[in-house]
């Protein structure tokens, strides 16, 4: 029941908000925190119900092959926790920034939440496509919400490219249906190994391309810098931190379930995409003058890291990818919120003009420093630990190119983040327009605290093993199939 509620509750909140707005703004102001906390609680409940053992929910009581089923296993639950916290932080930040005046924003926000939960929970391929499309549409809307020309252009390009990607996924799903006459993911996992290889190759190519496009891997990432830099700060944090991870989840889930045994070269493709994204993202970020665009390219590179981990196909690799997803959500949300707030105060996004910030906004700049150090991969912060697990996973698989590119990535990202920090710490005038920094400061401090804690924790508590176990469970297709089909 909780699984269905995790989708239905945000959906109904989204539909309730216009009604509440009609009855006066005060009502909305009172109910919005309730809605936010409720969504957070339900998502976490859904996550925890499936963390150790599979949690299932059959719609209408129809068994798996006939109806739609919601499945939570440990892989989904990690991502559900990630989504819950990421969206919660974004909601808090946007509530503080905008109040409840722009009620349409919150409608779209909750629709996004509902659809993300839907993607993470569903066990049916077409259902996943539907939720995927809903969350893509709401993402396009959120990007263009502020209606500046950059946001609209970015939203349009995101839309066209994203829709092309979605149609590739639809094509892949159509082929899977043609070959197997069923759309339930567990049933497909059973019957896909038997179909002719040619069809399997086409399905794999379509799925990988479509999902990597939404996830922001290199040759398909061109919408990402525009979209993530032109959006509002809270939206950028949400997109980079959370929305991208849902596509990564879909990629991991589909490649493990469908192509784990019959077509293991898919994993080589994912690793190759990861390495290319890493190099391309870091090289582009190196040259940027606009801070939000720099952070967006950094996201492309970090997705490369995650895809390298996922493409290893081993328990340790997937565990490392998961750990890095969680860390990246923390770090990137914090970076975007801090940088976005500072850029709004300085009335410019050009890095060389953002000087003198250390003197005036000490807390924010210090938090930014910690977060930047974390994302570069400096010990003893969490970025270093996830980079270590990724290196271990690549070495285990024998993929030295990936390991070396991870090291190279650290060096390059250190140079461009240092450039930003130099500007911040340089003497200068400071903010030209005052915006209350308490909320971003609180959020940034909490997030950097999490980075420090997660960085030190693996020395005292086997976090790496926990994630590797989740990875092993994700690899365990037979169990998943048994849990879903034999009910």
């Amino acid at each position, binding site marked *: 029941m909780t699984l269905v509620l995790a989708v239905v509750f945000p959906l109904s909140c989204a539909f309730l908000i216009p009604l509440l707005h009609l009855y006066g703004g005060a009502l909305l102001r009172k109910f919005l925190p309730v809605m936010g906390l409720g969504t957070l609680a339900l998502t976490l409940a859904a996550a925890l119900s499936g963390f150790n053992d599979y949690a299932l929910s059959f719609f209408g009581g129809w068994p798996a092959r006939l109806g739609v089923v919601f499945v939570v296993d440990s892989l989904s639950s990690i991502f559900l926790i990630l989504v819950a916290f990421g969206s919660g932080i974004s909601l808090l930040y946007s509530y503080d920034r905008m109040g409840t005046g722009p009620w349409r924003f919150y409608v779209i926000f909750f629709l996004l939440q509902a659809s993300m939960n839907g993607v993470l929970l569903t066990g049916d391929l077409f259902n996943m496509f539907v939720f995927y499309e809903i969350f893509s549409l709401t993402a396009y809307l959120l990007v263009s919400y502020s209606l500046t020309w950059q946001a609209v252009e970015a939203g349009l*390009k995101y839309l*066209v*490219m994203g829709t*092309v*990607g979605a149609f*590739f996924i639809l094509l892949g799903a159509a082929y899977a249906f043609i070959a197997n006459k069923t759309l339930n993911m567990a049933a497909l996992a059973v019957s896909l190994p038997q179909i002719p*290889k*040619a069809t*399997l*190759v*086409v399905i*794999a*190519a*379509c799925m*990988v*391309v479509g999902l990597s*496009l939404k996830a922001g891997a290199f*040759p*398909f990432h*061109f*919408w990402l*810098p525009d979209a993530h830099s032109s959006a509002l700060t809270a939206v950028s944090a949400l997109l980079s931190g959370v929305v991208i991870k849902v596509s990564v989840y879909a990629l991991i889930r589909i490649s493990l379930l469908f192509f784990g045994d019959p*077509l*293991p*070269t*898919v994993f*080589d*493709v994912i690793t190759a995409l990861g390495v290319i994204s890493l190099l*391309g993202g870091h*090289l*582009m970020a*190196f*040259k940027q003058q606009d801070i939000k665009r720099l952070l967006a390219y950094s996201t492309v590179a970090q997705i490369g890291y995650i895809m390298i981990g996922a493409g290893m196909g081993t328990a340790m690799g997937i565990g490392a990818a998961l750990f890095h997803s969680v860390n990246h959500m923390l770090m990137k949300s914090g970076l975007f919120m801090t940088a976005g707030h500072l850029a709004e105060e300085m009335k410019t996004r050009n890095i060389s003009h953002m000087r003198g910030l250390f003197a005036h906004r000490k807390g924010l700049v210090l938090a930014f420093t910690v977060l930047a150090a974390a994302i*570069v*991969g*400096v*010990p*003893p912060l969490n970025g*270093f630990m996830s*980079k*270590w697990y990724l*290196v*271990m996973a*690549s*070495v*285990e698989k024998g993929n*030295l190119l990936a*390991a*070396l590119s*991870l*090291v*190279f990535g*650290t*060096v390059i990202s*250190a*140079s461009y983040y*240092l450039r930003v920090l*130099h500007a911040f710490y340089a003497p200068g005038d400071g903010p030209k327009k005052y915006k209350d920094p308490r909320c971003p400061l609180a959020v940034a401090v909490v997030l950097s605290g999490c980075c420090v804690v997660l960085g030190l924790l693996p*020395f005292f508590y086997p976090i790496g093993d926990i994630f590797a176990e989740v990875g092993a469970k994700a690899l365990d297709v037979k169990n998943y199939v048994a849990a879903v089909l034999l009910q």
Partner: protein
Amino acid sequence: MAFGDPMSLFFAVSSTVLSVAVLFYNEWYFEGKERRTFNFLTVGCWVASIGALFAQDWLVFVVFVEVVSLILWRMISFTDTKAALIYLLAQLGAAGLILIGAAGASLEAGTMAVGPVPSEWRWFVLVGLGVKTAFPGVHFWLPKAHSAAPTPASALLSGFAVKLGIYGIARLGTFASSPELLIIGSVMAIFGVLKALMQHDAKRLLAYHTVSQLGYMVAALGVGTLLGLAGALYHALAHALFKGLLFLSVGRLEKFYGTKDLRLLRGSAAWDMPYTFVLFIVGALAISGFPGMSGFASKVMIKEALKEQGMYPVYWVLQAAGVGTVISFCKLGYYGFLSGGKKGAIVGRKEGLAYSRGSFGFLGMVILAAGTVFLGFDPEVTSGFLKISMPGFFGWDNVFSSLLVVSLGVGIFYLVKDFLSSGFRGSVVLDGLWKKIQHVPLAVHFVIVKMHSGRLRFYLTVVVFATLAILLYLAKHWR
């Protein structure tokens, strides 16, 4: 994390003594807020280095070594951010390579304990440590960083940070002679001295000497015997003390005259600051291997180790490097302290003026000098630590060969004195080659940047081509 191992304790002692001396020196060199920051950073550096030395596995070692690099980066960026950036990037790259080696070790051998590493992963760890120890080819960060840093930071860098690399290589080694280390060590020793002779910046000269002395240590580690290991460790400790002392005395020159360029110094420091001059002489004698100083004892150990194994070519290379060392320290001493003569001395400004800001600074240098002399006169005191039987230090042949080296060096210096005064920088060929090599990644970068042209149709075309590529790849490699 405790390691009762004498190797770690030995390095820990050198770290502690150097940090204490630098803390004292900070009192003189900096003022106010800067001084507090620097003291804080120095203490942090010391704590992190202790952590690195007593780490049980390579991962923890890398964590602490990176923290040391970060602290030193912060210190260097007080005076020169570009050099600090190059330093930090080199250290991060090195740490990453060590991590890859450690990951490989943990997967093959099942453990990551700091110690010998299975063969192919050993190269990663060795190259990573080599970047930290400034092997030729990857040494590019050292001269810039060590000379651009504020003097106390230079002392810490040359005195201690590079020794962490030596510690790692020592831990990595087994007891078999390692020809690659011998070759690298000899090349480093000569290369460092030759480049040092060409410098006119006093601190850059000292930095290249660090490279040269590290070459002695690497060669000693390459011998593979217990005596060689002991020689390397002893030289590491001695080098920390006398190099620290040399940097700190050059720092006094810099603070007093406002420049560290040998072409601009008045050369009257021997009369303006006589005490500093004496301490400088102590350090210079130590690095030249004059009998009675710590450098003599450690060089004797290294040379004995080489002679024992019959590695005479390396022995002669190191002797030649020793001559070069003496020549360049004569140059430093002459142009820094002596060439102006008493007439050039700044009348009325006595060293006493420097004392008014607290004689702690002086105390730091005295500690280092005392350590140098003590280790020189009584090298047997460390035999308890190192648990080997020491060769006869003050035997006639050892004393004779060191005195020969010293006098040869001084003699050659007098002959070529004027030739060295200008200081020239060679290696134009290498610079040209470097610029050509940079064209390829820059071209790739340019192409990637131009791809983000803003044209939606281009983006979609790239998507379609990439899809076809993936399709073809999967079709070719299905199994």
